[in-house]
């Protein structure tokens, strides 16, 4: 069936069978392979994307459910070839080892910072419970989110 939605700001239209998941649609049909396949049962968060601004597990969404939605994947974070401040902060804080969990963490962190520009450590932990890092980089991930929060606030202050 035909499925239409916005992917990282671009309108897309794709023919796919209705039983596949949005994760499969994004990876295998649209080649946005930044979205990672982990547990496929909603527990690890590697497949996290933004659907209409909210973090969701793409492995638990049937592809046709994306109709008309605005989808953002990790590929949509950088602008004009410049990394998003959250991505920079992850690099600066060494918030990854293998990196498999990173796209999911970046997306959830973006959703959090879009809502709460200056989150407490407690709030960061709460928001990120749906993302698992097997390498155990949690401490650095939390530092990175705090650093990103600072970066984003200084950028928007200097612009505004």
């Amino acid at each position, binding site marked *: *069936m035909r499925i239409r939605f916005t992917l990282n700001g671009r309108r897309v239209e794709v023919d796919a*069978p*209705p*039983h*596949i*998941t949005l994760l499969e649609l994004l990876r295998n049909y649209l080649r946005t392979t930044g979205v990672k396949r982990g547990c*496929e*049962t*909603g*527990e690890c*968060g590697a497949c*996290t994307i933004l*659907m209409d601004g*909210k*973090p*969701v*597990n793409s*492995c*638990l*969404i*049937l592809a*046709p*459910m994306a*109709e008309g939605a605005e989808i953002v994947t990790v590929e949509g974070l950088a602008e004009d070839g410049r990394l998003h401040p959250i991505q920079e902060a992850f690099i600066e804080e060494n918030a990854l080892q293998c990196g498999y969990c990173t796209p999911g963490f970046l997306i*959830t962190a973006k*959703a959090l910072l879009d809502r709460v520009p200056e989150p407490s450590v407690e709030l960061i932990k*709460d*928001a990120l*419970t*749906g993302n698992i890092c097997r390498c155990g980089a949690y401490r650095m991930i939390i530092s990175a989110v705090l650093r990103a929060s600072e970066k984003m606030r200084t950028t928007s202050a200097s612009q505004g």
Partner: protein
Amino acid sequence: MSMLEYRRFSSLEDALRFLSERPDAKIVAGGTDLVVQMRMGKLKPSTVADIRGIMELRGIRESDEGLEIGALTTIEEIRESSLVERLAPPLWEAAQEFATWQIRNMGTIGGNLCNASPAADTAPPLMVLGARVRTARLGGGRTIPIEEFFRGPGETILEKGELLTHVHIPRPGDSEGHAFQRLGRRVAHILSIVSAAAAVGVEDGRIGWVRVALGSVAPTPVRARTVERELTGKTPSRDLIKSASEKVLNDIKPISDVRASAEYRRAMSVVLVRRVLEKALRRAGA
């Protein structure tokens, strides 16, 4: 997974007509239970009916009698709602500890109830709040007390072609206290090992009425009627609560599964019932 047809509905009427003609069709709301079951091969629906576009099934409203929550309301919307916090405190508490942000953004209260897991976290709070559920089908719906909704694991009283539309929660009175607590393998783990909720009305220093309900300790979420009987009409004390909590063993039939043993569930049921009763009584001002 396989599926031949996917249909979207924005009108309740159209959805009901379609579902009555196509008894094989499976409803999808947030999909967080359905897609997992499809992936595991437990369910192979030939047709999926997407009801997410039916606006009248969304949202939280204050009504004359209390609170009305549409079946498509997400757990995250419940978690963020000050109306729910004020008018249905144990449901709000359950939403705080429910799954993960990602799951809460998709998962709906209707899906949680209709999936009819013995571990459905919204069920014990709704039971102690005295909630009723409203259904729709061609030729008229029904309004049923939440306790009568569940029949067994994965089974509800909903008939083919019947939809859950709203949950109604009566307005709590003064000197009423509530509490919810759950125990899981980790904060954000899939399902509770045991969950418990309590609501109590204090009258002249005595327990005028009390409702206690538990999840994950029987084929459906259950009321702890023996505990309730033990407490009603009495003056609350530590000893009374302790001995009444132990009576919960008469009300539950836990099994052993991957999450916990039956024995552990029995022991924890006693503890959780005691804790929610203490908290609810404290909040009722007793």
